[in-house]
Every structure is written in C-alpha cells, then in structure tokens.
C-alpha cells in the first residue's frame, strides 16, 4: 500500500486547506445572521422537545429522564446525518474547483464532516447542562472514553461520506436516495427507543440485520457514556472501532479508485 501512504502524506500537506474550508463553511453559513451558530442548536432542541412530547408525554415511554436519553443519541445522529447530507454533494457542487486545480479531492468531503464535527462538539453545551438538570449519574471514568468514541464515530462518518460523495458524481440519484435512506436509518437506530426493546422483540436473522447498522454500536456507546446506561464493555468499543476502520478503509479505497474521473464527469 505504498501509494496510499504517499496520498496520506499529501493529504497532510494540504491540512491548511482542510482548516480553511471548514472555516469558510462557518463564515459562509452564519454570515449576516444575528444568532449565528445558535441556529444549529435549535434543530436538536426542537427535535428533542417534539419527541419528548410524543413519546415521553403522550406514549409514556419507560425510559427515565427521556430528554437526556434522546439528546445523547440524537446529537451524534445529527452529526452523522448532517455530514452525509452535506458531504454527498461536496464533490459535485465544487466542479469548478475540481476542473481547474489539483488538490487531494478527499479534502472536500472530509472538510464537510469536520465542519459538522465542530457543530457536534459545540452542541455538548446543551447536553451537559441537561445532564446536570436531570441529575444523571456522572462517571468520570467513562467520560475519559468519550474522545475514543468520537474518533471512532468520525472514522465511520468519513468512510460513509467518501463513498456517497464519490458515487454521487456518477449517479446524482445518490443524494436523493440518501435523504430517504436517512429517514429510515434514523428509526433503525436506537435513538427514540432503547436497544433493549429491539433485543427483546427481534430474534435471529432480523436481529443480526438490525445490528448490521454500523450506527447502532456507536449510539449505544454514547448512551453508555453520556446517559449512563450500562457500559457494553471494552469488546464493544473494539468492535465499533473495527467496523469504523473497515468503513473508513473501504470508503477510502472506493474514493481513490474513482477519483481520477471526477474532473471529466462533473
């Protein structure tokens, strides 16, 4: 894999561009707004309020401190889905750049993911107050695992975004398909219900299928660390890392295979 280490070196050389693109997206998105970044906090807050009303108040879910449970699964989901929706067009919408200048093309989807990552990290500012307000148990030890989980989540997301952004160059359906897919994906992930419910209802191949969703494992890790549900163990952490690594590697291979054709296909 000599060529990929060269590519990675090159990617590193272009890190300045990566940061500049993330900064550019921030400036472009919040330019001229009064509340700026606060707008991006509004989406998860409203979602939590709505689900809280529907599932917590009307349907009386058995999950205690439901808003905290929701937030700890929903914020990572917003990061993931936001990255995918933003990243899928990251190549196709930058045609003029790709046609004119050489730079490692993976910079574009990766910068979109990092942009969403920064939002995700900033959104912890609503999560931690909620933890305190609802008096959730605080496990300092588990918090130390949070950076690892974030890295795993980032790897997984970059992997998926690399694939969808590359394929979207050849099939512009991908971006529309993705919107539909994410809607289903959201409900196939234990965010508004608990994983125990799934494990209790599904059996055999259906459960295997459900667990094939790579976001399930990572969501359960967030639940364990942030909400305080039982920690699934180091093995689960390693498994999530392995899955993320496969997605990242696979995504990178797919991306680099088709990347040379971008300039003429866009």
């Amino acid at each position: 894999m000599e060529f990929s280490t060269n590519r990675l070196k090159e990617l590193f050389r272009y890190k300045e561009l990566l940061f500049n693109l993330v900064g550019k997206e921030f400036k472009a998105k919040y330019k001229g707004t009064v509340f700026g970044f606060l707008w991006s906090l509004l989406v998860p807050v409203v979602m939590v309020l709505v689900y809280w009303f529907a599932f917590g108040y009307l349907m009386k879910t058995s999950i205690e401190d439901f808003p905290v449970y929701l937030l700890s699964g929903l914020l990572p989901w917003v990061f993931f889905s936001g990255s995918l929706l933003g990243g899928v067009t990251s190549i196709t919408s930058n045609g003029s750049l790709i046609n004119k200048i050489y730079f490692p093309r993976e910079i574009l989807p990766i910068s979109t993911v990092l942009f969403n990552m920064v939002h995700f990290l900033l959104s912890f500012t609503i999560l931690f107050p909620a933890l305190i307000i609802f008096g959730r148990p605080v496990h300092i030890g588990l918090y130390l695992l949070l950076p690892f989980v974030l890295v795993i989540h980032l790897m997984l997301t970059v992997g998926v975004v690399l694939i969808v952004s590359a394929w979207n160059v050849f099939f512009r359906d991908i971006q529309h398909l993705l919107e539909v897919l994410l809607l289903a994906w959201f409900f196939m992930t234990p965010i508004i219900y608990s994983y125990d419910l799934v494990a209790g209802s599904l059996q055999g191949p259906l459960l295997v299928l459900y667990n094939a969703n790579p976001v399930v494992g990572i969501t359960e890790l967030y639940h364990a660390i942030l909400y305080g549900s039982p920690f699934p163990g180091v093995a689960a952490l390693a498994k999530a890392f392995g899955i993320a690594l496969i997605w990242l590697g696979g995504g990178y291979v797919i991306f680099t295979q088709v990347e040379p054709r971008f300039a003429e296909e866009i």
Partner: protein
Amino acid sequence: MSSLPRWNRVSPKKSEMEDNAVRFENVSKRFRIYHEKHHSLKENVLTMFRDRRRWEDFWALRGVDLEIPKGQMLGIIGENGSGKSTCLKLLAKILRPNTGAVMVNGSLSALIELGAGFQPDFTGRENVYLNGSILGFSRSEINDRFDEIVAFAELEKFIDTPVKNYSSGMYMRLGFSIAIHVDPDILLIDEILAVGDEAFQQKCLERIRHFRKAGKTIVFVSHALGSVEALCDRAILLTKGKLTADGQPAHTIAEYRRRLGTETGTQILVPELAPCQEKLKESFPDVDGLLAGVDEKMAGIKEVMAWLERRVSEPMSIENARERIVEMEKTMSAAQGQGAVRDQALGDLGRKLELLESRVHTFLSDASPLLSRSFGTNQIEFLDVDFLDGNGTPGKRFRSGDSLTVRVKYRVNEAVEDPIFGISFRDQRGSVVFGTNTVIDRVGSLDTGTMGTLEIKIPRLALLGGLFFVTLAAHSADNTVQYHRMENYYKIQVEPRREYDGAIDMECNWRVIAGEVTSEQ
C-alpha cells in the same frame, strides 16, 4: 462500478527522470461525449440492456511521447481543440491519461485558471490564504510571502475589500500573483499573459524570465506565436491530439503556418490575406513622417510604432487580425497614459487605427462572402462536425429530398447564459439560402452541460444541386458575442433528386382533371 477504467500508475525510474522535468510516455486521453447524459441510476438501469454505446469517443491526445529537460521553456502551439489544454491538465494532475503515463519530476504550479476558488464574499486577504492553501501552502508559508504577493498584485489599498468588489483586472492580478509566488520547479502557463494592462503584462513577463534564469522548467501554451518564438527554447505542435512538430520555435511555428495554409477548411487562407496585408501597410505609409517634428521624448511612440509595424508586417490570419487590433489598441491606450505631450501624435495614430480597423472589417466582409474562418471567444468551442446522411453515414455528398443530420461536438470552456446555436447554408454566389437558429426554431433554453453533442436534423433537404457553404455558430442571446463561429467552414455537395430548375427542391403534385370547365369552378 466495474466499468470504471483503471489508470496506469507508473512511477518514474530514477535514472531516466533525473534530467527530465516532465515525461509523457505514449499518453492518450479520451473524452466521452454522451449523446444523452445519463446522470441517474434509473436512466442507467433502463439503458443497461439497450444500446450501451450512447456516447462517442473523442481522443484529445493520442500516443504523445514527450520529454522536457529541466530548465527548458517549452511552447505548445496548435489549433483550438488540438489537445494543448488537455496536455496542461494532464501535467497538473487534473486529468489522468487513459493510456501511457505522465511523469513529473519536481513541484509544479499551474497558471491555468487564475483565481479559481476565490470566494467573492471574502476579502482579498482571506482569499490569499484560501487560494494559497488550495495550492498547497501552509499558513506560515503564506505569511512569509503575503506582503510580496499583495505588492506584486498592486492591491495594497484593496486587500481588505471583498473580492466581489474587485475589477476583473484586479481579480486576475491577485490570482496571478498568488500562483506565481508558489515558486515551483515547473510552471505551467496557459494564455494568461493577457492579464491586466501592458505594464502588468511586462511585470509578468519579467517574472517569467526570472523563473527561466533560475533554471525552472516552464510549459507555455499560447496562440500568440510571437511570444512563443520570443520566449521559448523549444516548441511543439499538436494537431488533432498528435505531436506533429517538435524543435526550434521558429521551425515549429513555420510548420504550423504551413499546415494551416494547406489544410482545407482551416482558419488561415493565405492567398486571400495578401490584399488584406496590403491594406494594413497602406494605413501606415509614413510612420517617420507622422513623427516628424516630435521631440526626442517621443522615442516611446517610435517604439510603439515599431512594434505596430512589426505586428502589421507579420503574416496574419483573419482571426488574429481582430486580436491584433485589440492588442494595438491596448498598446495605444498604454502609451496614451504616458503623457499629454504625445496626444497630438497619438490622436493621429488613433484615427489611423480606427481607419485600419474599419478597413479590416470591411475587407473581411467584402473580400469574399465565402471566406472561410473560425473565430470567437472560445467560451463554447465546436470540436468536431459531422454531416450524416439518412443512414447515419458521415460524408460530404447528399441528395435533395434525403435527410441531413449535422452533428456538432462541442465543449463549454466557460459557462455562458442561454447560448444560441445557429446554422446557415450559402450557395456559391455567397447568398444565404437558408439560415435558422435555436431561437427561430423555438428550441427553448438549452442545458449544454460542459460538453456534448448538438444534432441538427433536417428530415428533408430542400436544397437543389450544387456546392453549399455551411456556417455554424454559438453566440450570446443578443448576438453581440460570438462564442464560436465557423463561417463557411464546411462545404457540402448536394445532388439534385431530379432535373429541377432553380435553387430549391419542392414537392410538386400534378393533377389533371379532364372534362368541361365550368365558370364557377
């Protein structure tokens, strides 16, 4: 995804590459021109089992072998669509070859598209950092060069203004300045010396000479043959994607002119230009006389005049005539700024130039309405034109009453709003016998994409026998800008269906009703 081609990644062998900055080894580059662009899964699925070849291959480069030694300045010349820009894009890693390998030894900076990636809302300063990072700079490297970049672009006062408020000249100057401060081993230059005013162009040339002195390798693509000859150590000629001449610039340019002059349907018709040149010379009968009485401070004017003279005496194409007039005007306006003392003489010169310009224009249209020429801003470029008969066979001979399809492969080099495509036929006397365009035929707005094929199908050719000259054009909605106009560029021969008289072929149904003719019938 199995249909995706793979690229040959050949790493250069050290020993072979040491003296060469660039090596092309049997490089070919193919573009697929889709008849209908499939960009969705459904269309791909639907057409999967049907006619899979709904595209045509256009080979922009075919089997090019080229070595550029370190420190050489190489000029690439050739007609539009000959593969010059593809060459540069391959060098710049924007495109990958379909066969063969492109090897580059050293860091490379491409002055292909200045200011690509500029954010209009960002200030000049922010764009220097953004653009610099696109070119692979780190923040500290940009910091080191920042003052120099701004000074070179002469934008000290405007560097904290959003670039959307820049003039196009300022925009280009900033782009050029960033790109040239990369300090690469290999520099690619694509027709960008038309940046800014004369003074800035001089500065750019100075910078390029400086690069040469520093032993850098430069690849220079240009239509300005004079610049190629003056600047380059060596020049190559590309003809339809093939390397057809290589050597001393003068030698290659001569070969280029020879080919242009002899090939049919090309841009330069040398014999017809001779009178044009005569007229140009007539317009400057007495340069020294014009300058008589002007003191020594007027040496600058003489220089300008000498330059004009040189330009005028060079063999020129009709296409270049326009360019040259623009160049002359530019030189004039640059000179105009030099001082009021010269106004008198300049006024005379200006009038002469105006006269010259109008004469050239009149000449062009009067000399021969059947003059074959190709010109335009190149924003849309016709690459290849085929005339197909009813069976889809390309050719130049058709029969009245049969169908004729004109298939035009085009490329959009720079997006334009609502382009209009037109076609017309002239007979041998130069009169237009038929002309139409996408507005007259109410085709509606066109989604051209970045390249594609335009098909004009005439189900029933109503021309009677003879030789017809076809003009194809892509122009702006108000017809003030010609993106590409191929005037009388193609000839087709039409065989009459029957021995009709006149110029057109009409269906005629005869009927005789024998019997008594009543008055009310």
